[in-house]
C-alpha cells in the first residue's frame, strides 16, 4: 500500500470518526454521557425556582401560625405536615431554600475570589510569600473545620455577612492550593514572558494574562465546593448559630429534635431538602469537572 493511499485511507477514517454534530446534538450527547450531572443540575434549578418564587409557590406564609393542626402528619392539604405551632412545613421548606442557596453561593463566591487572589500571588511570587501561605494552608486544611467555624461564628456575632465570611473562610484553602498550582505551571509559558518583555507591570500580567487562564479551574473548584458550603450553613443553623430570624432547614430539624416528644415527619422534610441540595451541587460539580478538565478527577 503506497504511503499516499494509506494517508488517504486514514483521512477518510478520520472524517468518519470526526463528530458530525450540530450544537443541539452535541448537547444531547453531553446529557447522555452525564445523566447524574444533568440530574444534579435539574435539582439545583428546581431549588433556585423555589427560592426565587417562594411567595408564589408556598401555599402559606412560612411564619403563619395555625395554618394547619399542630404537628400534623403529611396530608394533601399539608404535603410535608406542620410543626408544633401549626406552621405549614411545605411552605417552610420552600422558603428555606432562600437562605441555604444565598449563603451557599455567596460564601463560595467570596471564598473563591479571595482564595484565587491569594493563590495567584503565592504562586506567581514564590519564595518566602509562597512558603508562608502554603504552611498556613497546610495547617488550616488539617484543622477540624467545624471547630474553626464555631469559633469564628461565635466571635463575630450573628448576621448574614458574618455567616458568609465564616463559611467563605473555609472555602479558601482548597481554592488557594489549586489556583497556586495552576499559576506555577502557567507563569513559565511564553505568553507571560512576552508580556514581561513588552514591559507589562506585574499586576497587568497577573490579572490580564494569567487570571483568564486559571479562571476556568477556579470555577470548577468552586462548583465542587458549593455542596460543602450548603452543608456548613445547615450545620450552623442546626446548632443554633445560623441566622436567628430566618427560616432555615437546619434550624427546623433542630426544633423538631428538641421538641418533646420529638416529631419524625417534622424533622424529615427539611433534612431531606438539605440532602437533595447538597446532592445536586455535588453531582453537578463532579460532572462539570469531568467535562471541562478530566485530569482533575480524584484530585478535588
Amino acid at each position, binding site marked *: 500500500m503506497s504511503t499516499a493511499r494509506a494517508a488517504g485511507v486514514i483521512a477518510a477514517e478520520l472524517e468518519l470518526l470526526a463528530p458530525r454534530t450540530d450544537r443541539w446534538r452535541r448537547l444531547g450527547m453531553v446529557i447522555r454521557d452525564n445523566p447524574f450531572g444533568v440530574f444534579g443540575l435539574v435539582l439545583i434549578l428546581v431549588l433556585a425556582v423555589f427560592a426565587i418564587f417562594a411567595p408564589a409557590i408556598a401555599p402559606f406564609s412560612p411564619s403563619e401560625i395555625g395554618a394547619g393542626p399542630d404537628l400534623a402528619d403529611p396530608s394533601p392539604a399539608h404535603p410535608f405536615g406542620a410543626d408544633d405551632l401549626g406552621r405549614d412545613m411545605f411552605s417552610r421548606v420552600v422558603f428555606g431554600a432562600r437562605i441555604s442557596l444565598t449563603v451557599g453561593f455567596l460564601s463560595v463566591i467570596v471564598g473563591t475570589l479571595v482564595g484565587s487572589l491569594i493563590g495567584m500571588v503565592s504562586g506567581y511570587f514564590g519564595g518566602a510569600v509562597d512558603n508562608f501561605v502554603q504552611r498556613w494552608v497546610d495547617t488550616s486544611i488539617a*484543622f477540624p473545620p467545624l471547630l474553626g467555624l464555631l469559633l469564628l461564628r461565635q466571635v463575630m456575632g450573628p448576621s448574614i455577612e458574618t455567616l458568609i465570611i465564616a463559611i467563605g473562610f473555609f472555602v479558601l484553602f482548597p481554592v488557594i492550593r489549586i489556583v497556586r498550582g495552576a499559576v506555577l505551571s502557567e507563569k513559565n509559558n511564553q505568553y507571560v514572558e512576552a508580556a514581561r518583555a513588552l514591559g507589562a507591570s506585574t499586576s497587568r500580567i497577573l490579572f490580564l494574562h494569567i487570571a483568564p487562564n486559571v479562571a476556568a479551574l477556579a470555577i470548577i473548584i468552586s462548583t465542587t465546593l458549593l455542596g460543602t458550603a450548603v452543608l456548613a450553613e445547615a450545620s450552623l443553623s442546626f*446548632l443554633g448559630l445560623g441566622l436567628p430570624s430566618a427560616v432555615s432547614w437546619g434550624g427546623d430539624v433542630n426544633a423538631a429534635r428538641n421538641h418533646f416528644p420529638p416529631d419524625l415527619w417534622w424533622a424529615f422534610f427539611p433534612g431531606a431538602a438539605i440532602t437533595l441540595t447538597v446532592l445536586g451541587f455535588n453531582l453537578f460539580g463532579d460532572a462539570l469537572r469531568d467535562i471541562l478538565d478530566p485530569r482533575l478527577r480524584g484530585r478535588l
Partner: protein
Amino acid sequence: MQRYIIRRLVQAAVALFTLSLVVFLLLRLTPGADPALLRCGIGCKEERRQAIREELGLKDNYLVQYATWGKQLVTGSLGTDANNATVAGQLRHRLPTTLELLIIGMLLTVSIGISFGVVSAVFRNSLADYSARFAAILGLAVPSFWLATLVLLIPQQFWDYAPPLGRTIGFLDSPWDNLRQFVPAAFVLAVASAAGVMRLTRSALLDVMRQDYVRTARAKGLRERTVVSRHALKNSLIPVITLLGLQMASLFSGSIIIETIFNLQGVGQYFFNAMFAKDFQVAQTLTLYVGAVVLLINLVVDVGYAWLDPRIRYA
C-alpha cells in the same frame, strides 16, 4: 529521613504557635467575649464583674496573660470552666468517651470504605458497583445531624426502641449497653468519611489495575484474587492512608455534633457547650489541644508516607 522529620517538626511547632496566637488574640480583641460576664451570672453588678476579671487575670497585659496560658497548657493545671469544674478533670473524664467514639468511627470508616471500594472496583459497572457508588454519593450529601436525628427517632417511633440515654456508660461496666450507645453514633459519624474512602479506594484501585505489573501478574497465571489482594491493593492504599489521616480532623469535627445529639459526654460536647456559653477560656485551650493532636497525626501520616515513598522526602 532525619532531616525531613526535623523539618516537619519545626513546621508543626511554628503552626501550633501561630494557631495559639490567632486564637488568643481573636478571643480578646472581639467585643462581647468576656468570660467574666458568664461566671457573674444574670443581673451582674459591674464591681463583681471587675472582681472576677481581676481574679481570672484578665486585667494583666496580654503578654502576661499569654505566658500564664502557656504555663497552664504545659503543666496541665488548666483552671476552671464556667461551671466551676476544673478543666483538667473534665478532660480526664471526657477523653475516653471521645476516644471510643473516634476509634469505632475510624474502624467503621476503614472497614466499610475499603471493602465497598474494592468490591466496586473489582466488579466494575456491575449492579454492586452502581449501588455502592450511589450509596457513597448519598453518604457525602446527607447532613450528619439529620441522619443522627433519624437514627434516634425512627426506631423510637416504629419499634419503641431507644438506646440508653443520659449518662455515658463505660465499656467495662456494661459492654452491651456501652455499644448500644456508641455504635449508632459512631456509624453516623463514619458515613461521610467512609463514602470518601470508598470513592478514593475505587479510583486508586482501578488506576493500579491498569498498570503493567498487574498485567504481568495476570500473565503469570495468578488467580484474579491473588492479583488484587497481593499485587494491586497494597499500592492503591497509599493515597487512602493519607486521606484517613486528614479525616481524623473531620471525624473530630463530626464528634462535636454527634456527641451533642446522642448526649455522649465527650470532649466535642464540652467544646460545643463552652463555645455556646462563650466560655472562651475553655474554648481556646481545647482548640489548641485539638490542633496539636491533629498536627501530630498528620505528621505521623506524612512521615510514614515519606518512608514508603522516598520521592516525597526531596519534593
